[in-house]
């Protein structure tokens, strides 16, 4: 059909075809850009809506230092942000060694066979399992099965499992980007496999792994669904015991077994209340939550593009 068009084309209608093509190209680019603008303005609307909605609470220092309360004007987020930090400590402590270890195994050690294939399919499927299902895993297994209770440890553990695929996949990508020459040079000097991995491959892949880890943790910070099912309380008027103490042995782990709340849960609780005064608190909590996740994502994105430029 195109050939027929072309062969019958005389000069004037050939320029007509070219012009028409230019126009469709322009229209297509316009559509693409407008989709982009719509998406970005949604992001802007979210940010502005939250800041405007939460402003009266955001500028009040009590908001950051008070416990939740029945009175919206006295309610604060101190137990939520402390809880978020403690849960993230557990999550990072579990997810990083497991995820990096699994990534290294799949990339450096695994033989090409059906077991590896199976693990790969499994990881990619786990990445797509809805986060609320992880919440059911925690409810059925960690709480009713292992008796871990509704504690910081349980929450940190379930969020670690949730972001495991993210860390595994980014570790593998980072390792895959390391040239084979580096490994061969290490073997040439007499290093064995583990020495090569530990002394050359992992340090070279460090920043890529770090990026993936930050993205994973940023996702964990914002997740409410898997923690809601384990009964994270929203009315916590105390802080977990401090991990650091002044007397020997200076650290203690009692905080792991403490009840807790986290930022997204606190926000969900406030947004589900009918009174509009609590919605102000929800918006303010949302701003802080977004600052946390966007800052982490921003660092990760910057790191990645900075790295890519360096490699080039």
């Amino acid at each position, binding site marked *: 059909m*195109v*050939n027929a068009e072309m062969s019958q084309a005389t000069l004037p209608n050939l320029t007509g075809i070219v012009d028409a*093509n230019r126009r*469709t*190209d322009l229209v*297509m*680019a316009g559509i*693409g850009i407008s*989709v982009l603008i*719509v*998406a*970005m303005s*949604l*992001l802007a*609307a*979210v940010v502005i*809506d*939250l800041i405007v909605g939460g402003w009266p609470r955001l500028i009040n220092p009590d908001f950051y230092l008070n416990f939740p309360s029945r009175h919206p004007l006295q309610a604060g987020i101190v137990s939520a942000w402390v809880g978020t930090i403690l849960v993230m400590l557990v999550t990072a402590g579990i997810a990083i*060694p497991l995820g990096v*270890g*699994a990534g*290294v*195994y799949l990339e450096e050690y695994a033989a090409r066979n059906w077991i590896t294939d199976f693990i790969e*399919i*499994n990881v*990619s*499927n*786990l990445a797509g*399992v*809805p986060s*609320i*299902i*992880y919440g*059911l*895993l925690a*409810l*059925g297994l960690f709480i*009713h099965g292992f008796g871990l209770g509704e504690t910081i440890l349980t929450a940190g553990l379930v969020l670690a499992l949730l972001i*495991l695929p993210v860390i595994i996949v980014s570790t593998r990508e980072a390792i895959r980007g390391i040239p084979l020459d580096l490994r061969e040079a290490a073997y040439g000097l007499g290093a*064995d496999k*583990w*020495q090569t991995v*530990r002394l050359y491959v992992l340090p070279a892949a460090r920043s890529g792994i770090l990026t993936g880890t930050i993205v994973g943790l940023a*996702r964990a*910070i*914002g997740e409410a*669904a898997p923690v*809601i099912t384990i009964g994270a309380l929203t009315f916590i008027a105390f802080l977990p015991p401090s991990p650091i103490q002044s007397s020997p042995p200076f650290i203690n782990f009692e905080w792991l077994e403490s009840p807790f709340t986290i930022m*997204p849960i606190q*926000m*969900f609780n406030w*947004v589900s209340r009918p009174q509009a005064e609590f*919605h102000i608190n929800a918006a303010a909590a*949302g701003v802080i*939550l*977004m600052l946390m*996740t*966007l800052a982490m994502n921003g660092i990760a*994105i910057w790191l990645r*593009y900075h790295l890519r430029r360096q490699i080039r």
Partner: protein
Amino acid sequence: MRASESFLRRRALWGSFAGGCLLIAAASSVFVTLGIVYVLVTESMGFFAQIALLDFLTDTQWTPVFENAHFGVMTLVSATVTVAGIALAVSIPAGLALAIYLSEYARREVRETVKPCLELLEGVPTVVYGYFTLLFFTPLLQTFIPGLEGFNMLGPGMVMGIMILPYTASVSEDAMRAVPSGLREAGYALGYSRFRVAMRVVVPAAFSGITAAFILGMSRAVGETMVVAIAAGQNPNFSFNPTEGAATITAYIVQMAMGDLPHDSIAYQSVFAAGIVLFVITLTFNLIGFFLRRRFKEVY
């Protein structure tokens, strides 16, 4: 001599110890899957002992805490499908247009700036999108659609469509960029315009990858929790009408989990029965998506 022998022996020992640890780490992901399946099956066994599977799949009422309890999971599935359908209706055309623009039209510098911005969109916590949908987007829609309820499926569906856009667009763009440039050049040599090359060469060649992108996006929309739990209402309602509110599977799980259910009650077990349905739906989509994606990687 003996010193170096013992060094080598120690090194070999450490090496195999490390290898073993790494294998355990890799295997842990399999145990997570096994754990999920185990929990879903064992916790809902009591449920299916009392409720016939046929009733579960065909009843159109879901009233777990009523005196005369009904457990028709299709009530929850209808809302889940409606919301996910709206999300896809927004995400497919928008994602396709964006992917074509990024892969075929945009200069490299533009692409390198746009993709990080899109990633930021993915970084917003879903509970924040829920707040935005309930208190900003729905009131906005209500000015255009008078009959829209305060809790509805339209608003969450549309917001979710944009929410999964970075994902669907970037996976389809990957698929398009994997199409060898020789195919494009052949198109240009025939006098095709960019638009024609995109529509007749690149999109058909990348079709399995693009399909995978939207199937995986669908899976995300089905499993998305906080937006619907906040903005679509928690009232089980067998309805495909987007202006009404209805509880999705995920919203039901959240709602039940918030009340303190006794461990052996049927309501507690129904949470896991709903969870199985959700897991099977998303697993099916994920596996289809996985194999489609793998296929486009193999072809080129």
